[in-house]
């Protein structure tokens, strides 16, 4: 089968996802899609529009409303040679398939040495006043569940490349795609080589010597905006984006901190036991002597997401809040 890559300029994040799925389905006949309304309708976000026509109803399957059953069935099929990609209609609904994911799929390889090449696409995150059940950022549950890999790209090119890698990877991969970025983020797809495994990645998206910022998903965009503002004040932020949360590539972070001596983590997930905590713990364990101040966490509070947009905006780290957090980190 052809292993063609989409090379295109200025590609929307959401289109990058479509391209990745289509290219990988053309390349590998064992790839199949499952999810609610993904067939004729093309999914709640139309990412698989047209796929039914191209790949047929065996490979593009509408599922009943049954997240647990769907993940379980995909796991069984994956053990026996299929490569299912499941679309959660919204990331929030994963809680209904939680057991299948953390106990069946995640532990399968360790327990049995049978691999489970399964991808779960998770349209997640807030910013659109979608309320408590369509806005959550739940990566931490899965980072605390050994056996899963976790991806959360911020840019179209990473989204394309990592979705294809995730499908090729023999392990269950939880793939967080941010709804707010779907139609806002654009990058060129340059044909960067595609790995057949998801490996840790920590990418410096902007260099600076005063403070290391760590983020992923939507927040990386806010962080980059905030870094511009700080630059105008003469403060240079080193922006590290983590398109892959697990496995974690810690080295670039530690190297950056050696230079900056200050670090702040920004995430949209709620604070307690979020991935920011793990990063802060790792950093203060391995780099405490390089730190000239505490590791700051700039996060959502421990609260559900409000429907009212003003209330929601009050909780998501804004560019201002990020700048303030950094200023405090630099003062202390």
């Amino acid at each position, binding site marked *: 089968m052809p292993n063609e890559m989409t090379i295109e300029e200025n590609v929307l994040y959401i289109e990058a996802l479509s391209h990745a799925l289509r290219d990988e389905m053309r390349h590998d006949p064992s790839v199949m899609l499952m999810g609610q309304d993904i067939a004729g309708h093309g999914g709640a976000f139309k990412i698989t529009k047209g796929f039914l026509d191209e790949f047929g109803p065996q490979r593009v399957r*509408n599922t009943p409303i049954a997240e647990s059953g769907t993940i379980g069935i995909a796991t069984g099929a994956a053990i026996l040679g299929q490569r299912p990609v499941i679309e959660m209609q919204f990331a*929030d609904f994963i809680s209904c398939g939680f057991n299948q994911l953390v106990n069946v799929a995640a532990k399968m390889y360790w327990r049995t040495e049978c691999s489970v090449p399964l991808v779960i696409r998770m349209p997640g995150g807030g910013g659109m006043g979608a309320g408590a059940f369509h806005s959550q950022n739940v990566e931490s549950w899965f980072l605390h569940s050994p056996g899963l890999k976790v991806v959360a790209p911020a840019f179209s090119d990473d989204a394309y490349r990592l979705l294809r890698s995730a499908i090729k990877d023999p392990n269950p991969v939880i793939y967080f795609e941010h709804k707010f970025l779907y139609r806002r983020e654009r990058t060129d797809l340059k044909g960067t080589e595609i790995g057949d495994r998801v490996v840790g990645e920590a990418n410096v998206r902007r260099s600076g010597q005063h403070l290391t910022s760590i983020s992923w998903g939507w927040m990386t965009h806010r962080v980059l905006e905030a870094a511009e503002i700080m630059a105008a004040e003469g403060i240079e932020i080193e922006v590290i984006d983590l398109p892959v949360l697990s496995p974690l590539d810690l080295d670039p972070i530690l190297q950056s901190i050696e230079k900056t001596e200050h670090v702040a983590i920004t995430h949209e997930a709620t604070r307690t036991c979020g991935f920011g905590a793990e990063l802060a713990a790792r950093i203060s364990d391995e780099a405490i002597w390089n730190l000239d101040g505490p590791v700051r966490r700039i996060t959502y509070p*421990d609260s559900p997401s409000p429907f009212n947009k003003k209330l929601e905006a009050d909780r998501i780290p804004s560019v201002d809040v990020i700048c303030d957090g950094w200023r405090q980190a630099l003062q202390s």
Partner: protein
Amino acid sequence: MMDQPANSSPSNTGAPPEVSPAAAWLDTGSDHALREMHAYMRLTREWDLRYEKMFKTGALSKWYSSVGNEAATVAAASAIEKGDALVSLHRDAGAILRHYVNIETLIPEIFPSNMNLIRQPLGGDSRERLFRLACQMLGRQHGYSAGHERSYHYNHMEPEHGLIHIGMISHLGSMIPVAAGAALSFQQQKSDRVAINFIGEGATSTGDFHEGLNIASVWKLPFILIIENNHWAFSTPTSQQYACDNLASRAIGYGMAGVEVDGNDPIAMHQVMQEAVQRARSGEGPTLVEAHVGRHRGHSEGDDSLDQVPGDELRGYLENDPMDLIETRMVNSGIVSRAWLEEIREKCAALIMEVVDEAMSMPEPEPNSDRSIHAE
């Protein structure tokens, strides 16, 4: 192999099942019953049309329409009383309005003065409830969740009036056990109250549907689950959702009562509900009601999911619009005139317009990221 139950439903052609005759117990009062059902159905229809319009003008970011579900939901809620629990989903404005509002206090001339209502109305301030409901839809401070939750995602309790209303969370199926739990609380308290809950046919595929109904039946809880089968879940037809002839047959597997009914006929629906409520109150356990209704709109306003519904099927639904059916029936049997129906429509529309406009002018909530996640 197991026998298939005798009364399997017609498959999902556009047309709803044949209209059942009105219940015997309603015969003498059937004029009244029709007028009562109709008034609430009309109020509900105007409620939805208003928000549909606001969605189109951009004043609202999302709307799930309950157009087509009015007969089923209004009739269902007509069967419950003070102290019973209503647990609603996203297309149940009819049930909420029927339960919250005494329409004759808002539109006094709507019924003849000698008219008997099917059930005794709850006390309390109907106008204020309706107004707060509008505020809730619009994310205002004065809404039932003070802007924290969207549309029907709220609870509202007025213990002094025996109003118990638990709203939905998004995760479909989840509310079934919760509603059964409300029924459990009645059983524990040795009261004869009941809990009713709604679900779409799509969400019958969830594990919680199964776990909730099974426990409810084993424990003989006073619980009624009403499936609003509009034959589509977002863009997914029933043929891709389940393979059984009808969903009421699932009741067999739980050892509970199961009934299939034409949800476009409020009188048939009400009769089924009355029986189910009676069964629940007398300790005979839960009932599963499958009410067939039409799919009149897209899944939510502004999406193109209606494109998936074949033209013939859609036409069938529109031709069997429960509003049209009841109005034709009322006119044909000489209960009211077309002109009077039009007057009611205008009065209902005006009331909704007034309330929604007022709600629009209300303040949004102030930032409060410290809203407590715990009861103190």
